[in-house]
């Protein structure tokens, strides 16, 4: 591992850490909850790259499969069930159904 390679690795680490922190900040600051969940999924994927970088392949696979691949859809499904009745019901064929309580 000559000096050149470690230099590249350090740059990669700094960029990856900056990206992770920016995603986490965006995730928690964004007003629209749907956007926050999409940020969360990207955050999970970037995390699995970080695990690969730290020679932890098992954790990278688990993070990609469970952390981003299933927790994200769990959040989306919960969001859909929460919003299903209150503001409007997005029917599959896209017609907006009038919701009484607004």
């Amino acid at each position, binding site marked *: 591992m000559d000096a050149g390679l470690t230099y590249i690795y350090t740059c990669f680490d700094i960029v990856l850490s900056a990206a992770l922190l920016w995603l986490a900040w965006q995730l928690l600051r964004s*007003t*629209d909850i749907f956007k926050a969940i999409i940020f969360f999924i990207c955050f999970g994927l970037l995390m699995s790259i970080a695990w690969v970088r730290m020679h932890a*392949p*098992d954790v*990278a*696979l*688990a993070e990609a*499969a*469970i952390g981003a*691949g*299933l927790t994200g*859809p*769990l959040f989306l*499904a*919960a969001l859909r*069930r929460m919003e299903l009745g209150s*503001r*409007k019901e997005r029917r*599959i064929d896209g017609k907006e159904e009038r919701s009484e309580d*607004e």
Partner: protein
Amino acid sequence: MVRRNEAKMNNRHQTKKRLSGLLWTLLLLTIFLAGLLIWTVLNIPRPLPSLSRETAEYLAMSGVNNPVTAVLLNFRGYDTMLEVMVFLLGAMTVWSITHAPFPARVANPSPVQATAVRLLTPLVCLIGGYLIWQGAYQTGGAFQGGAVLSAGVVLLLISDFIWVPRMHSLPLRLGMAVGPLLFVILAIWGVITEGSLLKLSPENAWAYLLFLEAGCGISIGLTLAAFFAGGRPLGDLREEPYKADQDDGEEG
């Protein structure tokens, strides 16, 4: 569209009002906490200790080549037993709170989705099975393979095949409890034959662990799908005679 902007406006207004209040004290508190933590991390003695020497030493006796799986299933198998029980506990809690939402009255699933599901499901089972099998000597294992299997089951749930939500809960419960049951049986078997909980004889440990990993993979796959379904399968509703469960306060 007007209603959507309204919601966004008061949301932003609300965040602005909250920002000025207790937030500044909390911000200072967290910055102080961050400084403290970073100072502590810097002062931790540099040659970070690690257990890699011990793991390498006993890896041969653990029956698997992948050190992470060896630590997970053999050296610290008791941890994983409790943790798979936490997973099953999560599914029990989700089932005890509510029943799965009734399938949306969709005309018919689009043909593209139906054929995609028919093609993907066998592929998902193949990849999931391979990941579980590969755990013994390479990256992979029960959790990763189970997650892929659950993706296949979730695909079935989304594509609204009529029989999926109507399934009676017993086969699902058996599938979910396979992993923990195998763990408990192996634990007791270890006590009977080798004299200590979860102790596996080194020569046929690989067979036990493979059997165990397959069971855990299946149960994790079904449990993750139960999380996604979000409630008891509707097959259970037949058992409970329906009565409008009005909420009359002085519940016991």
